[in-house]
């Protein structure tokens, strides 16, 4: 996908350029008593990147984001955000980041505009620029026509989009989004993702988000999978998916033995299972037609599969993320049984 290609290119560009990374984390640890909520993690986020932290609740996502936003002090390790140390330069960090929390933090007895003006003053936006910035961010999230309305009249999705607009008001270098779409319907989630992509493109802001929605993580250019306070995988969505295996096309035919020979002769890597044949291919979508044609016998069923982030999470943790509650449930049996049959 274009998205991912861009990410790789951008990353190497960042590595070569003088501009420092947006976020740099080394051996970052947070302990609560005996429990290590975050256990010595390392990663770097390039400028302009969309970076996702994926993991079940309690994995350490929120603790990490809190440390990066200077809301929690690291027990040990080091983190810089926008070039500032989170432990010693908290105020400068906060000035250069935008924050959208999981829970709503608007005053619903004020209008959208009043909420934004309040924020502009809190973050020291120069007086002469306040009006133009408010108009700009409201345009970015398509709420300009609701500017004078009380926030109490907003839907949940609108309120969340207003918060994203507010997070962008003081032109932060990095926008942190903690579970930005949790509790919203799919249509609203899609709208919010449109907003986020627009911010990235038009304002060039780096985006750091946490999520336990697999499909959402796919919007990111790179994903860090975190579990029990440790990063267990970090790469682009496509690379992560490739690491759990290639695309497959499974077919059932009138004569599996004949089809197996025909497909192998045509150069496909094919294996025979209990329920027909499985071909391992680079791109399942493109391969379906040629495989059916090359089988040479009538094909009864076709199932094409590309590994998803669900597979990735399962592969690395042996557990599945459950969408609604974000709890990881033990899925060891399924992990062993279903993989690479």
């Amino acid at each position, binding site marked *: 996908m274009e998205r991912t290609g861009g990410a790789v290119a951008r990353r190497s560009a960042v590595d070569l350029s003088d501009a420092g990374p947006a976020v740099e984390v080394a051996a970052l640890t947070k302990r609560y008593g005996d429990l290590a909520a975050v256990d010595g993690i390392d990663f770097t986020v390039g400028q302009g990147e969309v970076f996702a932290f994926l993991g079940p609740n309690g994995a350490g996502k929120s603790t990490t984001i809190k440390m990066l*936003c200077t*809301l929690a002090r690291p027990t040990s390790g080091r983190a810089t955000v926008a*070039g*500032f140390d989170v432990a*010693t*330069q*908290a*105020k*400068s960090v*906060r*000035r250069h980041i935008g*924050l959208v*929390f999981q*829970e*709503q*933090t*608007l*005053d*619903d*007895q*004020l209008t959208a505009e*009043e909420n934004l*003006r*309040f*924020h502009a*003053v*809190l*973050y*020291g936006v*120069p*007086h*002469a*620029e306040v009006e133009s910035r408010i108009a700009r961010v409201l345009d970015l999230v398509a709420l300009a026509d609701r500017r004078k309305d009380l926030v109490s009249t907003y839907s949940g999705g609108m309120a969340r989009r207003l918060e994203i607009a507010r997070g962008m008001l003081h032109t932060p270098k990095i926008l942190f989004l903690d579970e930005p779409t949790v509790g919203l319907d799919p249509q609203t989630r899609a709208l919010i993702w449109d907003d986020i992509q627009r911010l990235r493109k038009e304002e060039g802001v780096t985006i750091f988000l946490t999520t336990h929605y697999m499909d959402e993580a796919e919007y990111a250019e790179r994903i860090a999978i975190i579990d029990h306070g440790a990063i267990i995988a970090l790469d682009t969505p496509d690379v992560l998916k490739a690491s759990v295996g290639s695309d497959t096309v499974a077919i059932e035919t009138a004569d599996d033995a004949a089809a197996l020979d025909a497909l192998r002769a045509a150069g496909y890597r094919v294996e025979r299972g209990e329920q027909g044949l499985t071909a391992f291919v680079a791109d399942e979508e493109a391969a379906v037609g040629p495989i059916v044609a090359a089988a040479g016998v009538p094909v009864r069923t076709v199932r094409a599969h590309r590994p998803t982030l669900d597979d990735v999470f399962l592969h690395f943790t042996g557990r599945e993320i459950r969408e609604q509650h974000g709890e990881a449930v033990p899925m060891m049996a399924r992990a062993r049984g279903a993989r690479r049959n």
Partner: protein
Amino acid sequence: MTTLSTTGSTGPAAAVPAGVPAGTSETVVSDEIRVVGMVWEREIIRYVRTRTRIISGLVQPVLFLFVLGYGMSGLVGTTGGFNFRQFVYPGVVAMSVVMTAMFSALSIVWDREFGFLREMLVAPISRVSLVLGKTAGGASVAAVQGTIMLVLAPLVGIHLTPVLVVQMILLELLMAVAMTTFGVFVASRIQKMESFQVVMQMLLMPMLFLSGALFPLNGLPGWLTVITRLNPLTYAVAPFRQVVFAAQDMSPAARARFPTNVTLFGYTLSMGMELAIVVVFAVVFFVLAFRGLSKTE
């Protein structure tokens, strides 16, 4: 409002220095003053927008003034043409100021519940500015509420002079500042909404009853006297009654019947000393409020 930055700004290039900003915690005073103004403005907007709050803030004092006022008048009687309603009036004005100030300050509990407190606490600003803005806002609305109460004066036979009105407004402001800082301190310790009612019932009501707002503090049993003297409100309520009574045409018998002074260890405090005590309480509560809010998040 709070137009502090110059409009002839040289543009964004001047606002953000080129290269990496070296200063880490540079606190710009004009920025902090803007914050104080903004927090204050929010309190005013919210006060004006919730008319029910203005009305309900008037109901209770009016109840005390007229219902309790008439009810007690029969018992207390009239001395030299002066009755219980006239006695209780300054206390009731003080009460409306106290309740409005406390309510305004305790809205921090709401802000915590609905998340807005977080928006304020994570901002790169000083907590002092937050407490100052909140205090200024609470004091403003409380003084407005107290001033509305002044229109009731003629109805209970209290004679208002221009000087008295000015004195009352100044006393209202001082009392409101002290009570708002106290309220912010209390609110910083309240984590849950449910605790709010408890605080109002268990803290505010006893403080009001034991402040001399509704009855004279002289001649009480020893233990009650001690409690009233520990109550900061006592020293804020007394000056109200002193300035109001000073402006009334009262017979010596009435003045003896309805005393206004507070005694401490046998000394009769002057109004200056009472006000000084209120100022000390205000400063102490301000520091406690600041520390309370600093511990959060």
